[in-house]
């Protein structure tokens, strides 16, 4: 985090005819958060760009080390605040690996987890679509996409009690079963999705102004993407079909039929198309789960770390004791380390956890997909027009809660 690095500050003094240093952000409406990009421009062409991050550093990793294993998921959901469930999913899967219960999670819990994660992927892409349109002056898309997003957040609220950070996933399963009437509300969202998506595509996909602004902007080749550690839709828009859901299936993704949309152009327009197609594939998974949702428990029966159901607490002394112990001192996790990735909306979101056998994590390291995706900005921005900077930032879709943590 810096105002102007020394190397560029010197250039301010030595600037020649047309060269100037322009600091964009951190308070800029089109940087999608608090990002500062120190750009060096000649006329309108960018010759150097240096993203500066850290303005939203909140020490979440340090906080998580000082919370119980269960409590840590509440702060972890705040990292990528546009799709909190993906963060919680990755963290909880990693803890379950350490506990050795990864194969014991009930079928229904796994299905509901995938259902909510895919819903939150759509909700997250809705923000990208709406704000990405606003960056280019297409304001109407914003209203359509945020309306769809609100319906999905209502589902979050209905299931977990909060719109954005429901904290509904638990180590070992779910906080509770889906409330009565959830599936009816889900059907409403499923029914409205296709026509709404058609409207949003009509607004942008073949819009000549939008195409002029995005085609051949911010091109990334497949080799460059791999070298810069790019994952997610940004990588798939460059022609590499790497998706954690297919490469390392988790939580039953191998049971669903879905495709991994890819493009080969690697420009901002290709990323736009890949993300739109990805939303359709997510809805395909949601429809399959809606049809095949099984009944049964949503939590592992092991009372060592699964709090007993609320209704048994009033009836059973042992349940009350278990509940009290789990709330007051949590549970211990066997020592070891594990790396568990999931496919978040922005790419491979991984957690490297270290447990020393205590009831708090020793280390919680996030692999922040947005950070690696954003880092490549200094590579792709060179030689582009300064006006296209907002297009490139928007097409990389960074979330600064995750970049800075």
């Amino acid at each position, binding site marked *: 985090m810096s105002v102007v690095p020394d190397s560029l500050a010197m250039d301010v003094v030595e600037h020649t005819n047309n060269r100037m240093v322009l600091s964009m952000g951190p308070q800029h409406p089109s940087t999608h958060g608090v990002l500062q990009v120190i750009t060096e421009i000649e006329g309108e062409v960018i010759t150097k760009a240096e993203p500066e991050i850290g303005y939203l550093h909140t*020490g979440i990793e340090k906080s998580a080390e000082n919370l119980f294993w269960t409590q840590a998921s509440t702060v972890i959901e705040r990292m990528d605040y546009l799709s909190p469930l993906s963060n919680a999913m990755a963290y909880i899967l990693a803890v379950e690996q350490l506990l050795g219960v990864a194969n014991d999670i009930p079928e229904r819990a796994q299905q509901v987890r995938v259902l909510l994660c895919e819903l939150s992927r759509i909700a997250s892409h809705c923000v990208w679509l709406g704000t990405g349109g606003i960056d280019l002056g297409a304001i109407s898309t914003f209203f359509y996409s945020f309306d769809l997003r609100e319906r999905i957040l209502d589902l979050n609220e209905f299931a977990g009690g909060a719109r954005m950070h429901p904290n509904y996933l638990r180590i070992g399963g779910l906080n509770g079963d889906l409330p009565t009437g959830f599936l009816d509300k889900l059907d409403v969202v499923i029914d409205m999705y296709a026509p709404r998506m058609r409207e949003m595509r009509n607004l942008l996909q073949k819009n000549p102004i939008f195409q002029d602004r995005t085609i051949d902007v911010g091109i990334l080749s497949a080799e460059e993407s*791999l*070298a810069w550690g790019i994952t997610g839709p940004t990588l798939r828009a460059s022609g*590499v079909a790497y998706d954690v859901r297919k490469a390392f299936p988790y939580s039953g993704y191998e049971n669903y039929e879905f495709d991994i949309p890819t493009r080969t152009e690697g420009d901002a327009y290709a990323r736009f198309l890949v993300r739109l197609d990805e939303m359709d594939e997510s809805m395909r998974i949601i429809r399959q789960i809606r049809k095949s949702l099984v009944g049964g428990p949503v939590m592992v029966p092991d009372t060592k770390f699964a709090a007993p159901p609320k209704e048994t607490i009033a009836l059973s002394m042992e349940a009350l004791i278990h509940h009290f112990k789990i709330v007051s001192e949590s549970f211990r996790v066997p020592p070891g*380390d594990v790396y568990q990735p999931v496919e978040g909306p922005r790419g491979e979101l991984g957690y490297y956890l270290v447990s020393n*056998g205590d009831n708090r994590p*020793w280390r919680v390291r996030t*692999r922040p997909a947005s950070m690696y995706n954003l880092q490549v900005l200094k590579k792709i921005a060179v030689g582009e027009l300064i006006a296209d900077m907002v297009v490139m930032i928007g097409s990389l879709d960074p979330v600064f809660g995750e970049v800075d943590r």
Partner: protein
Amino acid sequence: MPSSQAPPPGATALDPTALRPPIDDAAIERITPAELVARVMTLKASGYTMLLDIGGVDYLERAPRYDVVYHFLNLSGDGATVAAVGHPRRVRLLVGVPRDATDVPSLCDLYPNANWPEREIFDLFGIRFSGHPDLRRIQMPDDWEGYPLRKDYPLRGPASEMTPRPAFALKSNVAAGTPASGKTAAALQKQIAAARAGAATHGEPAAAAQSAATSPSAATAGTASAKELAERPINLKSDSNESK
């Protein structure tokens, strides 16, 4: 409160990575900083084209104290289709870094995306990467002192960053982390009462003693005796109103 759950074997282990359960998430190798570059060049030549992540861990008591953890991914071929990607392999390198020689060779020349995570580890752990082109702080302000993710760094930050406490909190002199057991609370009450008694007698000892002797009701008007003050139950919330 002592736990009724028996700690698992190896509880509070110094090196948890040596005790890990059989999880098949990556091939794990432990190497020294001197071997790093040669090993990574071999890996890159054998198809590990993506550096997924670099993270740091501080084990505090262990020797070597820190681990720098590298995750590599092998995407075979060009990865143009899902079938071509298949189930790629991961390699995890654990590089032990001693307490007093925190110098690790930078991988920026081999993998350009090592730039930011190495800066982050320098920023938060104080581990230096030799050969890094731009080793500045990345998350914390440039003039920050200390390395926040080290285990001996206080959770609430350095003392200079803490919110100033009100005067009565400073007087209580309760060390951070004191358990809120009954005994400590009683000791705290006793201490505050003693402090008040000292303050009351310090101002006008003769007048205070006299008023207490003549009219007990006058004590509530602000001139309470030391004995009454000591016996009055202490309620920190309404304390300031009562003393007026």
